[in-house]
Protein backbone atom coordinates (compact mmCIF):
# COMPACT_ATOMS: atom_id res chain seq x y z
CA UNK A 1 0.00 0.00 0.00
CA UNK A 2 1.34 3.46 -0.84
CA UNK A 3 2.47 5.85 1.84
CA UNK A 4 -0.21 8.33 0.76
CA UNK A 5 -2.98 5.77 1.14
CA UNK A 6 -1.65 4.70 4.52
CA UNK A 7 -1.63 8.30 5.80
CA UNK A 8 -5.18 8.89 4.60
CA UNK A 9 -6.36 5.62 6.05
CA UNK A 10 -4.83 6.47 9.44
CA UNK A 11 -6.44 9.91 9.43
CA UNK A 12 -9.88 8.54 8.54
CA UNK A 13 -9.62 5.77 11.11
CA UNK A 14 -8.53 8.08 13.92
CA UNK A 15 -10.87 10.96 13.21
CA UNK A 16 -14.04 9.39 11.85
CA UNK A 17 -13.98 5.75 12.87
CA UNK A 18 -12.38 6.34 16.26
CA UNK A 19 -9.73 3.74 15.64
CA UNK A 20 -11.93 1.01 14.19
CA UNK A 21 -10.95 0.74 10.54
CA UNK A 22 -12.45 -2.66 9.93
CA UNK A 23 -14.38 -2.55 6.66
CA UNK A 24 -12.56 0.55 5.41
CA UNK A 25 -11.31 -0.51 2.00
CA UNK A 26 -9.52 1.64 -0.53
CA UNK A 27 -12.68 1.95 -2.60
CA UNK A 28 -15.18 2.36 0.29
CA UNK A 29 -17.33 5.42 -0.32
CA UNK A 30 -17.03 7.66 2.75
CA UNK A 31 -20.42 9.26 2.14
CA UNK A 32 -22.36 6.12 1.25
CA UNK A 33 -20.78 4.22 4.13
CA UNK A 34 -21.60 6.96 6.64
CA UNK A 35 -17.92 7.38 7.51
CA UNK A 36 -18.00 11.08 6.65
CA UNK A 37 -20.92 13.39 5.99
CA UNK A 38 -20.83 16.52 3.87
CA UNK A 39 -19.65 18.48 6.91
CA UNK A 40 -16.87 16.06 7.70
CA UNK A 41 -15.48 16.44 4.20
CA UNK A 42 -14.02 19.76 5.28
CA UNK A 43 -12.15 18.16 8.16
CA UNK A 44 -10.63 15.85 5.60
CA UNK A 45 -9.84 18.79 3.31
CA UNK A 46 -8.13 20.65 6.12
CA UNK A 47 -5.96 17.61 6.84
CA UNK A 48 -5.06 17.08 3.16
CA UNK A 49 -4.11 20.74 2.73
CA UNK A 50 -1.79 20.65 5.73
CA UNK A 51 -0.33 17.20 5.21
CA UNK A 52 0.30 17.49 1.46
CA UNK A 53 0.87 21.26 1.23
CA UNK A 54 -1.87 21.87 -1.31
CA UNK A 55 -4.84 24.19 -1.61
CA UNK A 56 -8.18 22.59 -2.41
CA UNK A 57 -10.59 24.91 -4.16
CA UNK A 58 -14.35 24.97 -3.46
CA UNK A 59 -15.14 23.49 -6.85
CA UNK A 60 -12.84 20.55 -6.11
CA UNK A 61 -14.98 19.44 -3.14
CA UNK A 62 -16.65 16.69 -5.09
CA UNK A 63 -17.01 12.96 -4.43
CA UNK A 64 -14.90 12.12 -7.48
CA UNK A 65 -11.93 13.69 -5.71
CA UNK A 66 -12.57 12.96 -2.06
CA UNK A 67 -15.05 10.15 -1.47
CA UNK A 68 -12.66 7.22 -1.00
CA UNK A 69 -9.01 6.51 -0.31
CA UNK A 70 -8.52 5.60 -3.98
CA UNK A 71 -10.22 8.81 -5.17
CA UNK A 72 -8.07 10.95 -2.89
CA UNK A 73 -4.86 9.28 -4.00
CA UNK A 74 -5.75 9.86 -7.67
CA UNK A 75 -6.77 13.42 -6.95
CA UNK A 76 -3.54 14.17 -5.11
CA UNK A 77 -1.58 12.65 -7.93
CA UNK A 78 -3.39 14.82 -10.52
CA UNK A 79 -2.98 17.86 -8.30
CA UNK A 80 0.75 17.36 -7.89
CA UNK A 81 1.05 16.71 -11.61
CA UNK A 82 -0.71 20.01 -12.34
CA UNK A 83 1.54 21.83 -9.89
CA UNK A 84 4.61 20.25 -11.47
CA UNK A 85 3.55 21.40 -14.93
CA UNK A 86 3.02 24.96 -13.69
CA UNK A 87 6.54 25.20 -12.21
Amino acid sequence: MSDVKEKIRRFIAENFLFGDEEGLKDDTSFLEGGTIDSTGILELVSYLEEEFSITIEDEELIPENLDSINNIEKYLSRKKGDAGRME
Partner: protein
Amino acid sequence: MPETHTPPQICSRCILPVTFPGIKLDEAGICNHCRREESLSTKTADKKEAYRVRLDDLIRGIKGKAPVYDAIMAYSGGKDSSYALKLLKERYGLRIIALTFDNHFVSPAAMENIKRITDPLGIDHICFRPPWPFIKELFTLTATQDIFPAPTLLRASSVCTACIGIVKSLVLKTALEMSIPMVAFGWSPGQAPIQSAIMKTNAALIRQTQSAFINAFPADIKGRMTHYLLPEDDYTQYNDRFPHNIHPLAFFPYNEDRIIDELKGLGWHAPEDTDTNSSNCLLNAFANQRHLERHGFHPYVWEIANMVRQGVMPRDQGIEKIYSEQNSHMVQYAKERLEI
Protein backbone atom coordinates in the same frame (compact mmCIF):
# COMPACT_ATOMS: atom_id res chain seq x y z
CA MET B 1 -31.73 19.04 38.79
CA PRO B 2 -31.87 15.60 37.15
CA GLU B 3 -30.52 12.61 39.04
CA THR B 4 -27.01 11.62 37.93
CA HIS B 5 -26.32 7.91 38.10
CA THR B 6 -22.87 6.45 38.68
CA PRO B 7 -21.13 6.77 35.33
CA PRO B 8 -19.06 3.95 33.87
CA GLN B 9 -15.31 4.43 33.89
CA ILE B 10 -14.72 7.61 31.92
CA CYS B 11 -11.75 9.60 30.71
CA SER B 12 -10.36 11.64 33.58
CA ARG B 13 -10.10 14.73 31.37
CA CYS B 14 -13.16 14.69 29.08
CA ILE B 15 -16.18 12.49 29.71
CA LEU B 16 -15.92 9.71 27.11
CA PRO B 17 -16.74 6.31 28.64
CA VAL B 18 -14.76 3.13 28.17
CA THR B 19 -17.79 1.83 26.26
CA PHE B 20 -17.20 4.34 23.47
CA PRO B 21 -15.89 2.54 20.36
CA GLY B 22 -12.15 2.73 19.82
CA ILE B 23 -11.36 4.60 23.03
CA LYS B 24 -8.06 3.93 24.78
CA LEU B 25 -7.22 5.24 28.25
CA ASP B 26 -3.56 5.66 29.20
CA GLU B 27 -2.02 5.14 32.63
CA ALA B 28 -3.25 8.55 33.76
CA GLY B 29 -6.78 7.62 32.72
CA ILE B 30 -6.72 10.11 29.84
CA CYS B 31 -8.21 9.06 26.52
CA ASN B 32 -6.53 9.00 23.12
CA HIS B 33 -8.79 11.84 21.87
CA CYS B 34 -7.71 14.16 24.68
CA ARG B 35 -4.06 13.30 24.04
CA ARG B 36 -4.43 14.10 20.35
CA GLU B 37 -6.15 17.38 21.16
CA GLU B 38 -3.12 18.46 23.25
CA SER B 39 -1.08 18.93 20.11
CA LEU B 40 -3.84 20.86 18.36
CA SER B 41 -5.28 23.14 21.04
CA THR B 42 -2.64 25.85 20.78
CA LYS B 43 -3.76 26.55 17.21
CA THR B 44 -7.48 26.73 18.02
CA ALA B 45 -7.69 30.37 19.13
CA ASP B 46 -5.92 31.52 15.96
CA LYS B 47 -8.20 29.37 13.84
CA LYS B 48 -11.34 30.78 15.44
CA GLU B 49 -10.20 34.31 14.68
CA ALA B 50 -9.38 33.30 11.10
CA TYR B 51 -12.86 31.85 10.65
CA ARG B 52 -14.51 35.01 12.01
CA VAL B 53 -12.57 36.95 9.40
CA ARG B 54 -13.63 34.46 6.71
CA LEU B 55 -17.27 34.88 7.66
CA ASP B 56 -16.93 38.66 7.68
CA ASP B 57 -15.47 38.46 4.16
CA LEU B 58 -18.11 36.03 2.94
CA ILE B 59 -20.93 38.19 4.24
CA ARG B 60 -19.39 41.33 2.77
CA GLY B 61 -19.55 39.58 -0.59
CA ILE B 62 -23.15 38.40 -0.44
CA LYS B 63 -25.08 40.80 1.78
CA GLY B 64 -27.93 42.58 0.02
CA LYS B 65 -27.32 40.90 -3.35
CA ALA B 66 -29.91 38.09 -3.24
CA PRO B 67 -33.53 38.90 -4.18
CA VAL B 68 -35.02 38.76 -0.68
CA TYR B 69 -32.92 36.95 1.92
CA ASP B 70 -29.19 36.77 2.63
CA ALA B 71 -29.49 33.68 4.79
CA ILE B 72 -31.80 30.90 5.84
CA MET B 73 -31.47 29.52 9.35
CA ALA B 74 -32.35 25.97 10.36
CA TYR B 75 -34.23 27.03 13.44
CA SER B 76 -35.41 24.65 16.17
CA GLY B 77 -36.22 27.28 18.78
CA GLY B 78 -33.59 25.73 21.05
CA LYS B 79 -30.89 27.81 22.68
CA ASP B 80 -28.11 27.24 20.14
CA SER B 81 -30.05 28.05 16.98
CA SER B 82 -31.75 30.98 18.77
CA TYR B 83 -28.36 32.36 19.73
CA ALA B 84 -26.91 31.83 16.25
CA LEU B 85 -29.91 33.65 14.78
CA LYS B 86 -29.46 36.55 17.18
CA LEU B 87 -25.74 36.69 16.43
CA LEU B 88 -26.20 36.78 12.66
CA LYS B 89 -28.92 39.39 12.86
CA GLU B 90 -27.28 41.70 15.37
CA ARG B 91 -23.67 41.43 14.23
CA TYR B 92 -24.26 41.48 10.49
CA GLY B 93 -27.77 42.91 9.97
CA LEU B 94 -28.61 40.13 7.55
CA ARG B 95 -31.99 39.59 5.94
CA ILE B 96 -32.80 36.17 7.37
CA ILE B 97 -35.62 33.72 7.02
CA ALA B 98 -35.84 31.04 9.72
CA LEU B 99 -37.24 27.60 8.94
CA THR B 100 -38.52 25.27 11.64
CA PHE B 101 -39.13 21.61 10.98
CA ASP B 102 -42.11 20.70 13.15
CA ASN B 103 -41.55 17.01 13.80
CA HIS B 104 -44.67 16.81 16.00
CA PHE B 105 -42.42 16.63 19.07
CA VAL B 106 -41.40 20.28 19.29
CA SER B 107 -42.02 21.47 22.84
CA PRO B 108 -44.87 24.03 23.05
CA ALA B 109 -42.43 26.14 25.08
CA ALA B 110 -39.98 26.04 22.14
CA MET B 111 -42.74 27.12 19.77
CA GLU B 112 -43.37 30.12 22.02
CA ASN B 113 -39.63 30.79 22.14
CA ILE B 114 -39.53 30.89 18.35
CA LYS B 115 -41.98 33.79 18.35
CA ARG B 116 -40.15 35.47 21.21
CA ILE B 117 -36.92 35.47 19.20
CA THR B 118 -38.07 36.07 15.63
CA ASP B 119 -40.51 38.89 16.42
CA PRO B 120 -38.13 41.31 18.17
CA LEU B 121 -35.31 40.50 15.73
CA GLY B 122 -37.63 41.18 12.76
CA ILE B 123 -37.02 37.76 11.21
CA ASP B 124 -39.48 36.05 8.87
CA HIS B 125 -40.31 32.52 9.93
CA ILE B 126 -41.77 29.50 8.21
CA CYS B 127 -42.76 26.21 9.76
CA PHE B 128 -42.74 22.93 7.83
CA ARG B 129 -44.87 20.13 9.24
CA PRO B 130 -45.25 16.74 7.53
CA PRO B 131 -48.35 14.69 8.34
CA TRP B 132 -48.35 12.74 11.61
CA PRO B 133 -48.78 9.25 10.09
CA PHE B 134 -45.53 9.69 8.14
CA ILE B 135 -43.66 11.09 11.12
CA LYS B 136 -44.97 8.36 13.38
CA GLU B 137 -43.77 5.70 10.97
CA LEU B 138 -40.39 7.39 10.54
CA PHE B 139 -39.68 7.71 14.26
CA THR B 140 -41.07 4.29 15.10
CA LEU B 141 -38.70 2.82 12.55
CA THR B 142 -35.65 4.75 13.73
CA ALA B 143 -36.42 4.25 17.42
CA THR B 144 -36.55 0.51 16.98
CA GLN B 145 -33.89 -0.09 14.30
CA ASP B 146 -30.48 1.30 13.42
CA ILE B 147 -30.90 1.92 9.72
CA PHE B 148 -27.88 4.19 9.28
CA PRO B 149 -24.26 3.05 8.92
CA ALA B 150 -22.40 2.45 12.18
CA PRO B 151 -20.06 5.48 11.90
CA THR B 152 -23.07 7.81 11.75
CA LEU B 153 -24.36 6.42 15.02
CA LEU B 154 -21.17 7.35 16.86
CA ARG B 155 -22.33 10.97 16.77
CA ALA B 156 -26.12 10.86 16.94
CA SER B 157 -29.06 8.54 17.49
CA SER B 158 -30.95 7.04 14.57
CA VAL B 159 -33.96 9.22 15.41
CA CYS B 160 -31.89 12.42 15.39
CA THR B 161 -30.04 11.42 12.23
CA ALA B 162 -33.33 10.93 10.37
CA CYS B 163 -34.76 14.20 11.63
CA ILE B 164 -31.65 16.29 10.96
CA GLY B 165 -31.35 14.75 7.50
CA ILE B 166 -34.77 16.15 6.63
CA VAL B 167 -33.96 19.52 8.19
CA LYS B 168 -30.76 19.88 6.17
CA SER B 169 -32.62 19.00 3.01
CA LEU B 170 -35.52 21.38 3.63
CA VAL B 171 -33.32 24.40 4.29
CA LEU B 172 -31.20 23.63 1.24
CA LYS B 173 -34.27 23.21 -1.00
CA THR B 174 -35.65 26.50 0.25
CA ALA B 175 -32.31 28.23 -0.26
CA LEU B 176 -32.08 26.99 -3.84
CA GLU B 177 -35.66 27.88 -4.73
CA MET B 178 -35.43 31.36 -3.17
CA SER B 179 -31.87 32.14 -4.32
CA ILE B 180 -30.57 32.40 -0.76
CA PRO B 181 -26.76 32.29 -0.75
CA MET B 182 -26.15 31.14 2.82
CA VAL B 183 -27.56 28.39 5.06
CA ALA B 184 -26.90 28.75 8.79
CA PHE B 185 -27.00 26.11 11.50
CA GLY B 186 -26.80 26.51 15.27
CA TRP B 187 -24.53 23.56 15.83
CA SER B 188 -22.51 23.70 19.02
CA PRO B 189 -18.68 23.77 18.96
CA GLY B 190 -18.81 20.07 19.90
CA GLN B 191 -21.02 19.16 16.94
CA ALA B 192 -19.26 21.14 14.23
CA PRO B 193 -15.47 21.08 14.15
CA ILE B 194 -14.02 24.42 13.25
CA GLN B 195 -12.58 23.14 9.96
CA SER B 196 -16.11 22.46 8.74
CA ALA B 197 -17.65 25.72 9.90
CA ILE B 198 -17.81 27.47 6.52
CA MET B 199 -18.38 25.43 3.39
CA LYS B 200 -19.40 26.15 -0.18
CA THR B 201 -21.74 23.33 -1.13
CA ASN B 202 -22.07 21.98 -4.63
CA ALA B 203 -24.44 19.75 -6.57
CA ALA B 204 -22.16 16.69 -6.76
CA LEU B 205 -21.46 16.58 -3.05
CA ILE B 206 -25.07 17.14 -2.04
CA ARG B 207 -26.36 14.55 -4.52
CA GLN B 208 -24.07 11.92 -3.02
CA THR B 209 -25.00 12.92 0.54
CA GLN B 210 -28.72 12.78 -0.18
CA SER B 211 -28.32 9.45 -1.94
CA ALA B 212 -26.57 7.99 1.13
CA PHE B 213 -29.33 9.31 3.37
CA ILE B 214 -32.30 8.08 1.33
CA ASN B 215 -30.76 4.69 0.63
CA ALA B 216 -30.66 3.96 4.34
CA PHE B 217 -34.45 3.70 4.43
CA PRO B 218 -36.48 0.62 3.56
CA ALA B 219 -38.38 0.78 0.28
CA ASP B 220 -41.82 1.40 1.78
CA ILE B 221 -40.78 4.64 3.47
CA LYS B 222 -38.20 5.74 0.89
CA GLY B 223 -40.85 6.83 -1.61
CA ARG B 224 -42.48 9.21 0.84
CA MET B 225 -39.14 10.43 2.13
CA THR B 226 -38.15 11.67 -1.33
CA HIS B 227 -40.74 14.48 -1.00
CA TYR B 228 -38.43 16.13 1.47
CA LEU B 229 -35.19 15.74 -0.46
CA LEU B 230 -33.92 17.63 -3.49
CA PRO B 231 -35.60 16.53 -6.72
CA GLU B 232 -33.14 15.52 -9.43
CA ASP B 233 -34.03 18.59 -11.52
CA ASP B 234 -32.73 20.91 -8.80
CA TYR B 235 -29.17 19.75 -9.30
CA THR B 236 -29.11 21.04 -12.86
CA GLN B 237 -31.66 23.85 -12.64
CA TYR B 238 -29.95 25.43 -9.62
CA ASN B 239 -26.41 24.24 -10.27
CA ASP B 240 -24.96 27.73 -9.82
CA ARG B 241 -27.00 28.51 -6.72
CA PHE B 242 -25.64 26.05 -4.19
CA PRO B 243 -25.13 28.05 -1.00
CA HIS B 244 -22.47 28.33 1.67
CA ASN B 245 -23.22 26.39 4.84
CA ILE B 246 -22.08 28.09 8.02
CA HIS B 247 -21.91 26.97 11.66
CA PRO B 248 -21.03 30.22 13.44
CA LEU B 249 -21.03 28.80 16.98
CA ALA B 250 -17.96 26.76 16.05
CA PHE B 251 -15.84 29.92 16.05
CA PHE B 252 -17.66 32.59 18.08
CA PRO B 253 -17.31 32.60 21.88
CA TYR B 254 -19.56 29.90 23.34
CA ASN B 255 -20.70 29.73 26.94
CA GLU B 256 -24.00 28.03 27.67
CA ASP B 257 -24.91 30.13 30.72
CA ARG B 258 -24.08 33.38 28.95
CA ILE B 259 -26.04 32.31 25.87
CA ILE B 260 -29.13 31.60 27.97
CA ASP B 261 -28.76 34.94 29.78
CA GLU B 262 -28.56 36.80 26.49
CA LEU B 263 -31.58 34.98 25.10
CA LYS B 264 -33.57 35.70 28.23
CA GLY B 265 -33.08 39.36 27.39
CA LEU B 266 -35.22 38.74 24.31
CA GLY B 267 -37.84 36.81 26.29
CA TRP B 268 -36.59 33.26 25.60
CA HIS B 269 -37.31 30.80 28.43
CA ALA B 270 -35.58 27.45 28.95
CA PRO B 271 -38.27 24.77 28.45
CA GLU B 272 -38.89 22.57 31.48
CA ASP B 273 -40.30 19.66 29.51
CA THR B 274 -37.19 18.62 27.56
CA ASP B 275 -34.16 16.49 28.46
CA THR B 276 -30.70 17.69 29.52
CA ASN B 277 -29.40 17.79 25.93
CA SER B 278 -32.22 19.53 24.14
CA SER B 279 -34.11 22.77 24.60
CA ASN B 280 -36.79 22.03 22.03
CA CYS B 281 -37.49 18.33 21.44
CA LEU B 282 -39.86 16.07 23.39
CA LEU B 283 -38.64 12.94 21.62
CA ASN B 284 -34.98 13.30 22.51
CA ALA B 285 -35.06 11.54 25.89
CA PHE B 286 -36.57 8.43 24.33
CA ALA B 287 -34.17 8.55 21.38
CA ASN B 288 -31.24 8.81 23.82
CA GLN B 289 -32.47 5.94 25.92
CA ARG B 290 -32.90 3.68 22.91
CA HIS B 291 -29.41 4.55 21.66
CA LEU B 292 -27.91 3.87 25.10
CA GLU B 293 -29.63 0.50 25.28
CA ARG B 294 -28.44 -0.54 21.85
CA HIS B 295 -24.91 0.89 21.80
CA GLY B 296 -23.85 1.30 25.42
CA PHE B 297 -22.93 4.96 25.11
CA HIS B 298 -24.95 8.19 25.02
CA PRO B 299 -25.53 9.63 21.51
CA TYR B 300 -24.47 13.10 22.70
CA VAL B 301 -21.29 11.98 24.43
CA TRP B 302 -18.96 12.72 21.51
CA GLU B 303 -20.33 16.27 21.17
CA ILE B 304 -20.27 17.03 24.88
CA ALA B 305 -16.81 15.47 25.34
CA ASN B 306 -15.54 17.73 22.56
CA MET B 307 -16.93 20.76 24.36
CA VAL B 308 -15.38 19.73 27.67
CA ARG B 309 -12.06 19.12 25.91
CA GLN B 310 -12.24 22.53 24.22
CA GLY B 311 -12.94 24.19 27.57
CA VAL B 312 -16.30 25.63 26.51
CA MET B 313 -18.21 23.45 29.00
CA PRO B 314 -17.22 22.54 32.58
CA ARG B 315 -16.63 18.82 33.02
CA ASP B 316 -19.19 18.44 35.82
CA GLN B 317 -21.83 20.04 33.59
CA GLY B 318 -20.92 17.59 30.84
CA ILE B 319 -21.20 14.66 33.24
CA GLU B 320 -24.62 15.86 34.35
CA LYS B 321 -25.81 16.15 30.74
CA ILE B 322 -24.63 12.71 29.74
CA TYR B 323 -24.86 10.58 32.85
CA SER B 324 -28.22 11.75 34.20
CA GLU B 325 -31.09 9.31 33.99
CA GLN B 326 -33.37 10.01 31.03
CA ASN B 327 -36.55 11.69 32.23
CA SER B 328 -38.94 8.75 32.61
CA HIS B 329 -42.01 10.90 31.95
CA MET B 330 -40.54 12.11 28.66
CA VAL B 331 -39.57 8.58 27.67
CA GLN B 332 -43.06 7.33 28.46
CA TYR B 333 -44.68 10.28 26.64
CA ALA B 334 -42.78 9.47 23.43
CA LYS B 335 -43.43 5.73 23.69
CA GLU B 336 -47.14 6.28 24.08
CA ARG B 337 -47.36 8.69 21.16
CA LEU B 338 -45.43 6.31 18.92
CA GLU B 339 -47.30 3.32 20.36
CA ILE B 340 -44.07 1.42 20.95
